[in-house]
């Protein structure tokens, strides 16, 4: 993908977002208000949407004129970033279902692997220790209530 295409996509995304915000602001109950002296709940978002629309238009014009048509680097999303996002997403998915211990342990295993910690046994031991330590600190010291899995109850 070229830099020009990335700029075009970004500009169009914000242009659409601004348009959508302006449209939805009008549809809110009370809309933009009766007049300027009696503003409705949609007035402020309407103005903000208009600013985004205008700024995105300027961004598009500026970038389409100045950005060269060369290949952008990096042109692919790096694998490690995707893995990191998926690992955190897995933690969020598992937390209410499997509880803190399982979710945090898997998060740490995933994270230590992505950040290249050598040796599987070391990874498992570190993840286990860090999970226990963080559980102790957050629940016992700071009184954070962690969700218990349904099977645990």
């Amino acid at each position, binding site marked *: 993908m070229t830099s020009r295409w*990335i700029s075009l996509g*970004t500009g169009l995304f*914000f242009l659409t*977002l*601004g348009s959508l*915000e302006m449209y*939805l602001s009008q549809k*809110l*109950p*009370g809309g933009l208000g009766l*007049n*300027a*002296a*009696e*503003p*409705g*709940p*949609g*007035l*402020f*978002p309407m103005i*903000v*949407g208009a*600013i*985004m629309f*205008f*700024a*995105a238009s*300027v*961004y598009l014009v*500026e970038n389409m004129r100045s950005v060269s048509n060369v290949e952008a680097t990096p042109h692919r999303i*790096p694998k*490690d*970033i995707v*893995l*990191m*996002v998926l*690992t*955190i997403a897995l*933690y*969020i998915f598992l*937390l*209410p279902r499997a509880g803190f211990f399982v979710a*945090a342990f898997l*998060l*740490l295993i995933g*994270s*230590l692997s*992505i*950040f*290249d*910690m050598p040796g599987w046994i070391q990874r498992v031991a*570190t993840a286990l220790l*860090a999970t226990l330590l*963080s559980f102790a600190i*957050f629940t016992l010291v*700071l*009184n*954070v209530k962690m*969700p218990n899995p349904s099977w645990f109850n």
Partner: protein
Amino acid sequence: MNAFEGLLFGFSIALQVENLLACFIGVLIGTIVGVLPGIGPIGAMALLLPVTYAMTPAGALIMLAGIYYGSMYGGSTTSILLKVPGEVSSVITTIDGYEMARKGRAGAALFVAAVGSFAAGSVGILGLAFLAPVLAASALRFGPPEFFALCILGLLVLSRLTGSSLSRAAVMVALGLSLSTVGMEPMSGVSRFTFGYLDLAQGLELVPIAIGLFGVAELLSSAHNKLTNEKPLKVSFKELLPTRAEWKRSQWPIARGSLLGFLFGLIPGPTAIIATFSSYALERKLSKHPEEFGHGAIEGVAGPESANNGAAQGAFIPLLALGIPFAPASAMLLTALLIHGAKTGPMLMTESPEIFWGVTSSMYIGNLMLLLLNLPLISVFVALLRLPMYLISSLVVLLCVVGTYAISNSILDLWVLLISGVVGYVLRQLKFEPVILLMALALGPILERSFIQSLYLTQGDMLEILTRPIAGTMIFISILVIFIPILKRIYKSLF
């Protein structure tokens, strides 16, 4: 309460055991954050916001402020020993600091940096104690139009100072303000952009977005770049003290850097960085040996290191006196104030004097703690640099998710965190500034409220704002901030 009485009252708050402990933890974490590359003070403050829920508002602010100015101290250590700035405001220190370290004068460079930071901190606190009450007293006369104009000015100036193009900055401002409109509208109670999700009626929490934009985005970036441990130069306690000549050469740069940094701190934007570069340029210009700069001139360490701490202290004035964050770190502190239900703005000083004066006085104690911590324990902090990055990064991931969940035991907050992290990473890749987004998000509710109140006040005629001297002047400056760069560009293209 005058400034002296205020300071005395502040010390009675700051010297309470729990606040002393909060201050110590804050400056210690700040120093560690400053030493370790990767997570910055804003990310660390965001991560620790949930921890402050169990504290008093004054204790929470004391700890978070300690992280901020503590990181300025810590940032110099890696700049001098590794040529890797722990903080962006320590970039300039890498030039002469590292050269001094290579010549075996690392101890002297670290000592001068610590003393300079302490001196600047002291100047900043005195300025804060005397200037903030005056500013807050005049701000008590501010009405909604003035607050509206001030918010506009703050956002515009910050946008221009971050180096982002005007269109990029405006997109970020609009995005931040848009996110601030999600949830129940305060005047009418109408739910906006919640799409039927009841959890969104309270609005988007600032903390998960802040942790996502700075903490998770930084982690995603380091997952790709794989930071490795560098080998720091050795420092022994024996060589820590500077020679008489080095000390003599450092005194005036410290004084000038402290003052310059403090004055820069009063301006919106990432002024700590600008202050350090300005101080370096000034010292080079005033030096009898400008040729030594770049080869280990001690003035090149003393001036900028004092300036960055002076700016960090100066940035507290607009926050504590007006309730307007002019720097990203101030936005975090404002968030903490809002979370703890404290009155922000000029009313802070009258309604919560223990927060204002407690935080101000705690900075003096914190700076003293930093001086005592940093000099004898320098080797301990250097040892931290040997901790493997995979361990630090993985623990930070865990801290991000557990800390976010702790805010309101909400799974939605965790999804907001993850989405904000991905958005923050993508925005950086596309050269957008997430800092502007966060500021707009923090200022959004204040801006909207003052805008709507101004409309009621002026019967819908917003042009009437221009006839009010303070609001009119601020709007005029805002217009200049937008148009001067555009006019400059047109002038350059024509001639």
